[in-house]
């Protein structure tokens, strides 16, 4: 019985030792490289006395970082990706919540990693990947581990301003990768172009199928997403045939007409997720590359990754939405109405192995979203309530309706408007704030009273919030408008921004 995702690598490294596994512009690691490096570094971590605990991996987005993730798993620990792109305030909050004893860094991140590490030891990847092997200790880990031991923690946005660390065990991850590979039909010919940062669960779609199916993952340089022609040149240069990207990255290519000017030549599969794909953009893709399989992928971090999919099999009108589709095997997805009754329209709820262990070091917020199945009063059964509203259409497919709360989807990321406000309100002098989301323009604007001038506030927010949460425009007001009930007039301010 399979108990850890490391076993994928054990098999594939024997089957394709010299085939490239992970690469970027500078470095290529074969399956054998990843296998050897991860076992050497894993031996080192075991020698440091680490055991079933968090290891923060604070490295640049490189093939080595992926090998470091696997090294942490080899040692029976779980990894937590930290990235220089995260704002310093967020990194601090994550370290506060996580309190790791070990951090792995590279040459580029060493200085910052040491700054945030506190009492944790900081190890350089280049050093630990050349340690001595300890076969005995590695075998002991494999023998004694169980599949409900954690594999990783991914931090997501939380409405109070404190990020939530979603803790995921090997069993959920294996379950996800098995179903995902079945649906997508990856094989050893598959070459992924990796778009999403490794600190988002969307990156799992490339990393683990590569280990299971012997694919290749090419890390696409972040800067190319500004310059779509260069981006497709890159895809062609590395013969990338599979993209699992957030919608905004795909839109970047189609909206500028690059599909006609310099289309990606090798594409076979395009998986998209993170937000609703605008039909206009989807149609451009379909028209330019009609033989590609287009697959909508949906699922929150809290249920491991993707839990629902829809392979586009028909035309859509401009005002229609591409469905979320149906559940992966071994996941039960159902809609609950406001009275917690099964319904054809309501909140998306999930049950099964995909449901993760909860939020790390946060029992309070875990119990709010991971709850007893209200349809079952006979034995303990935890379901995850996504907060997404959906309905079932006449074809039996699930279709996304909206978010239940103030959480929105912006540039493919989950954003709690409340988190932005909580942060702004904590700035000296600010007495109130209201973040509004302009759906049509996919833009966040902020209104606030008191405190710093507009330009200064924007700069402060860039230090404190992830890039995608920083409002495109901030507006200082003498007094924020209120509704007759004395609440902030969100609708009024949204309308003001939409003008």
């Amino acid at each position, binding site marked *: 019985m399979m108990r850890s995702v490391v076993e994928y690598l054990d098999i594939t490294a024997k089957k394709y030792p010299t085939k490239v596994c992970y690469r970027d512009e500078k470095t290529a690691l074969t399956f054998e490289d990843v296998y050897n490096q991860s076992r050497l570094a894993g031996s080192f971590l075991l020698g440091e006395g680490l055991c079933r605990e968090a290891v923060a991996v604070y490295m640049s987005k490189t093939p080595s970082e992926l090998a470091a993730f696997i090294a942490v798993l080899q040692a029976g620990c779980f990894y937590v990706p930290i990235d220089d792109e995260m704002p310093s305030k967020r990194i601090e909050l994550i370290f506060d919540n996580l309190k790791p004893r070990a951090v792995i860094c590279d040459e580029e991140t060493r200085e910052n990693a040491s700054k945030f590490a506190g009492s944790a030891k900081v190890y350089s990847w280049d050093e630990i990947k050349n340690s001595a092997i300890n076969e005995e200790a590695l075998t002991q880990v494999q023998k004694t581990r169980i599949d409900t031991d954690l594999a990783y923690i991914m931090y997501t946005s939380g409405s109070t301003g404190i990020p939530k660390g979603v803790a995921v065990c090997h069993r959920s991850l294996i379950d996800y990768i098995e179903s995902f590979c079945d649906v997508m039909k990856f094989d050893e010919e598959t070459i992924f172009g990796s778009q999403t940062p490794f600190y988002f669960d969307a990156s799992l779609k490339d990393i683990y199928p590569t280990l299971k199916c012997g694919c290749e993952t090419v890390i696409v340089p*972040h*800067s190319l*997403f*500004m*310059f*779509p*022609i*260069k981006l497709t040149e890159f895809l062609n240069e590395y013969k990338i045939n599979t993209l699992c990207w957030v919608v*905004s990255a795909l839109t*970047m290519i189609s909206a*500028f*007409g*690059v599909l006609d*000017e*310099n289309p990606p030549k090798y594409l076979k599969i395009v998986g998209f997720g993170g937000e609703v794909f605008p039909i206009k953009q989807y149609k451009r893709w379909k028209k330019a590359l009609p033989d590609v399989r287009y697959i909508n992928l949906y699922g929150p971090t809290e249920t491991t990754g993707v839990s629902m999919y829809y392979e586009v099999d028909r035309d859509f009108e401009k005002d229609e939405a591409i469905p979320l589709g149906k559940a992966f095997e071994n996941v039960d997805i159902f809609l609950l109405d406001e009275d917690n009754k099964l319904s054809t329209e309501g909140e998306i709820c999930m049950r099964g192995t995909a449901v993760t262990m909860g939020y790390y070091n946060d029992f309070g917020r875990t119990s709010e979203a991971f709850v007893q199945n209200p349809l079952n009063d006979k034995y303990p059964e935890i379901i995850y309530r996504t907060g997404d509203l959906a309905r079932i259409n006449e074809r039996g497919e699930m279709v996304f309706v909206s978010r239940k709360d103030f959480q929105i989807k912006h*540039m493919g990321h989950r954003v709690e408007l409340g988190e932005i406000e909580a942060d702004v309100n904590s700035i000296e002098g600010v007495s109130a704030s209201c973040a509004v989301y302009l759906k049509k*323009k996919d*833009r966040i604007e902020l209104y606030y009273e008191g405190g710093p001038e*507009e*330009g*200064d506030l*924007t*700069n402060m927010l860039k230090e404190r919030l992830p*890039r*995608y949460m920083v409002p*495109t*425009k901030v507006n200082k007001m003498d007094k924020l408008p209120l509704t007759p009930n004395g609440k902030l007039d969100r609708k009024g301010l949204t309308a003001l921004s939409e003008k």
Partner: protein
Amino acid sequence: MEDLIEILKDLHADVDYDTCETLIDDKILDSFDIVSIVSEVDDKFDVAIPAKELIPENFNSAKALWALIERLMED
């Protein structure tokens, strides 16, 4: 040009757009900014920046970007 500077100031208030010529090279502008700029320029000047003009050279300074907009307005 002033309207353009205003758009840019909205994104990064502390940058001296009159002199800075390394907006891309020094990672001052990122992909979110480029998307915003393209859409704001379209709104304000009614100029759609085509893909082949989306290259680092056209975005490295306000001057270069303004030259691009003027060129596109003439077409």
